[in-house]
């Protein structure tokens, strides 16, 4: 019954099996990670002294932020920009999703030919990899200051997110139904409308609302580079050292983001 125990009376040893290929790989990986961290901390010149003196200035910063600015003129400007923020997010969501639809179709493995598939996946990767603010700066330079640049930037970011997730839903479509419609002699377009669309409408609505929520967040900050919304005010008051107004703007941003999150959660629950 006991294997091996009869051959020797030596005490057996046990070492925890490693998740890596062997112990040397394990130490190599740990060593590499540790070296990366040490190198990073060293070359970023992060020292306790700098850190602590920064915390001291942090106290001054908070002190100058309190109490937040509540002058009626400034609050009126704040409300104006809040509405602009929300409006930008609305338009950008609609235009972004409109642009996403062909990309999503192209990126669904089961619906599109190979070259289109790779092209669409490429667009998605680029859109996801480049940060929204970089896109916003380029848009500001091409189109000038104002909400249009923001809308273009947010729409561009929407394409990567929405197309990727919606393409996954399209790939999950039950092809049996689509084939049945194809068998009636339907065209490619008819197959989409009758076979695919009814299956994906609920997910589409859910994703759209989810992305709207994210777009509200982006919309609050693209103004930092001049692309409209609350960020414009933030950048302006920051560069004038009006930290008490900065505090009011930050609270407005948090409020807008939270409300959007709640609305999005409620609507998505309703849609499911």
């Amino acid at each position, binding site marked *: *019954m*006991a*294997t091996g*125990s009869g051959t020797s009376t030596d*005490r*057996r*040893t*046990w*070492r*925890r099996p490693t998740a890596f290929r062997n112990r040397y790989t394990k130490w190599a990986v740990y060593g590499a990670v540790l070296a990366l961290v040490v190198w990073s901390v060293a070359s970023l010149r992060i020292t306790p002294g700098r850190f602590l003196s920064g915390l001291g200035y942090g106290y001054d910063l908070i002190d100058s932020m309190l109490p937040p600015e509540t002058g009626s003129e400034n609050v009126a400007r704040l409300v104006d920009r809040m509405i602009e923020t929300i409006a930008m997010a609305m338009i950008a969501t609609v235009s972004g999703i409109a642009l996403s639809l062909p990309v999503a179709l192209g990126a669904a493995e089961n619906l599109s030919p190979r070259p289109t598939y790779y092209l669409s996946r490429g667009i998605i990767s680029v859109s996801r990899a480049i940060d929204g603010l970089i896109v916003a700066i380029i848009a500001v330079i091409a189109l000038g200051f104002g909400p249009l640049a923001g809308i273009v930037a947010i729409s561009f970011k929407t394409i990567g997110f929405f197309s990727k997730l919606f393409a996954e839903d399209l790939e999950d479509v039950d092809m049996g139904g689509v084939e049945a419609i194809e068998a009636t002699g339907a065209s490619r377009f008819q197959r989409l409308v009758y076979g695919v669309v009814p299956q994906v409408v609920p997910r589409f609505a859910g994703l759209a609302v989810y992305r709207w929520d994210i777009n509200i967040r982006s919309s609050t900050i693209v103004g930092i580079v001049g692309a409209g919304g609350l960020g414009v005010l933030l950048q302006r008051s920051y560069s004038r050292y009006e930290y008490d107004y900065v505090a009011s703007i930050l609270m407005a941003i948090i409020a807008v983001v939270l409300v959007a999150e709640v609305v999005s959660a409620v609507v998505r629950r309703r849609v499911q």
Partner: protein
Amino acid sequence: MLETENLGKTYPTGDEALRDVSVRIGGREVVAMIGPSGAGKSTFVRCINRLVEPTTGRVRLDDRELTGLGEDELRNARRDVGMVFQEYNLVERLTVMENVLSGRLGYVSNWAALRRDFPPEDVERAYELLELVGLDDMENKRVDELSGGQRQRVGIARAVVQEPKIVLADEPTSSLDPETSRDVMELLTDIAVDRNVPVVINIHEVDLAERYADRILGLHDGELVFDGPAADLTEESKGVIYRGEEPPEATTRIGTSEPTDAEATGRRAEPEPLSAED
């Protein structure tokens, strides 16, 4: 020798789960505790090592009173009580060996525990126990890869590697199929004899209790209503335990609470009619 004296537990919700339970368990007897669900069986074993804090009464293991011990002393005392659980309560993402060795946690430093650096004799003992429970060469498997029966064997090995003065098993067979249940019961009874420790088993299958136990404790509604050799468990006493019927005088021996003959003879009640009750 485990001794409880008027052990009682009332939960904050007001449920009186256990009332005045006094027993003495010693030697190498196998004690089955039976009773309907909600009778307090699980509360009783958990009160012994104070996973559930008893509200009244006392628990004594050998010469040490467990009730009233401070945190550190309680942890030391728990090392002497091996426990086997219904849902195994193994750490699923750790290996079989780590789970067995965790039975020795009370004896090693934090640093050694972190590095899984257990003394060689603990490792050797763990290997031997894995062979005993039939899990040779499984030491590096993760517990979440095992079947229910295999998990319960790991659970038993973890309890026994503690070298406990008593083993408590809380419904060790409830999650297992009948055949595996019998294997586990046999394993527990063998351990009582081989390791010379008493084993207390909560169980709701009366036939398993009668077949494997030397002595039976019957709980009804938190009260001890039967305490005697398995052979004395009659239909009437089952009625008392399970339906709360009035006890007919002769059969119950509440209050005597003496270890059964098994302690003296070293033999558990004969599990002979192997096929009859299956």
